[in-house]
């Protein structure tokens, strides 16, 4: 578990130890309490700081990553930003393969941290970034690819840091909800929680792809990351962009929590789960803060005004 320190030697030491806050005002019934774990409190504002640190620490320890070596990673943004921060701290050049359909802030943040961006076709979503990164990696075997989709240090980060923090703060939780991206959070947290108490249920909130992924040629281009152990799941709830936006905004208006778009999906999935419980406690993991999404107009416009624009943006 990552220990809090008073004076950090560098930003890497400030990863994890995120707060849990009561957001039960959004619960559909008073007998079910909902709590949010604010991963936006991490140094680069997302849960991905955890996996970046675990993947890099492990690769340094066993020699896969050498001083000054270039890091390459496919990402929809947050993992790249986290790796770029660590690259700044520890002296690694970082290159990310990212779909060309993300918010402007993600691009600018990566550039601020000095990362180089290689764009993949937006209409193939993150699946397209994964395919392109594999090609680039084959051309550049001298670069190190942490590869969050296959790297067991991704779920291990959550098994060893996120889950113990949740258990310490909320030992009597009944249900855990997180968004589904690589599946690393759900797998790592889910495994640890079920070892701790097998009756705890784990629910995934999945983004509705809408019309975004029209570039897929066949379902065989679908992708289930190898790190994702679907057996930890007790349910999966799909949430469309309109609902995600509405709940993300409601979260800010009613609780003051300023979180990213996937958080709206997670809160919605928690509400659906709450409706089926008679009583209990739900912990939601909110993967990032809202700053990277301001340009979407999400807090200042109605969804109907934004619909055409947001349909072509990859949010997770």
């Amino acid at each position, binding site marked *: 578990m990552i220990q809090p320190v008073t004076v950090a030697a560098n930003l890497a030491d400030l990863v994890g130890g995120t707060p849990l806050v009561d957001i039960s005002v959004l619960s559909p019934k008073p007998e079910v309490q909902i709590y949010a774990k604010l991963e936006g409190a991490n140094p680069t504002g997302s849960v*991905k700081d955890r996996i970046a640190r675990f993947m890099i620490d492990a690769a340094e320890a066993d020699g896969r990553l050498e001083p000054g070596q270039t890091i390459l990673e496919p*990402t*929809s943004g*947050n*993992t790249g930003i986290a790796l770029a921060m660590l690259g700044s701290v520890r002296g690694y050049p970082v290159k990310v393969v990212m779909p060309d359909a993300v918010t402007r802030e993600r691009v600018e943040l990566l550039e601020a941290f000095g990362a180089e961006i290689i764009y993949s076709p937006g209409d193939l*979503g*993150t*699946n397209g970034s*994964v395919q392109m990164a594999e090609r680039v990696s084959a051309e550049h075997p001298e670069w190190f690819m942490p590869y*969050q*989709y296959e790297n067991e240090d991704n779920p291990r980060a959550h098994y060893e840091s996120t889950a113990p923090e949740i258990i310490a703060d909320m030992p009597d939780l009944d249900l855990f909800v997180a*968004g*589904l*991206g*690589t*599946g*690393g959070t759900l797998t790592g947290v889910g495994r640890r929680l079920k070892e701790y108490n097998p009756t705890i249920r784990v629910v995934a909130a*999945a*983004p*509705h*792809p*809408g*019309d975004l*992924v*029209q570039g*897929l*040629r*066949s*379902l*065989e*281009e*679908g*992708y*289930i*990351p190898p790190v994702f152990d679907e057996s930890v*799941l*007790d*349910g*999966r*709830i*799909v*949430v469309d962009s309109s609902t995600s936006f509405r709940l993300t905004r409601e979260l800010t208006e009613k609780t003051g929590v300023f979180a990213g778009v*996937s958080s709206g999906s997670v809160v919605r999935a928690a509400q*659906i789960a709450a409706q089926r419980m008679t009583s209990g406690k739900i912990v939601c993991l909110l993967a990032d803060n809202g700053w990277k999404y301001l340009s979407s107009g999400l807090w200042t416009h109605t969804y109907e005004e934004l619909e055409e624009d947001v349909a072509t943006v990859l949010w*997770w």
Partner: protein
Amino acid sequence: MAVQVHVTSVIQRVVGGQRTISADGATVIELIEDIEARYPGFRETLVGEDGKLHRFVNIYLNDEDVRFLDGAETQLSEGDEVSILPALAGG
């Protein structure tokens, strides 16, 4: 049992480009067979020879993945909405 079925991406092409189709069936598999009758090839897009849903397809009944209900045998009710979506990664 009339059910609205929303499809996206690759699957839209199998049903003549429609986003939503109306279909009948008491269970998810009956629903798929009903659509197959009108759009041959629909079934094999979603279901393997073993009768199980393909790994890369997720079928949601009113927003909930049917794998965590009764899979292809999940019961449907009048007015239900079903969404058929490809598995996607994020991160």
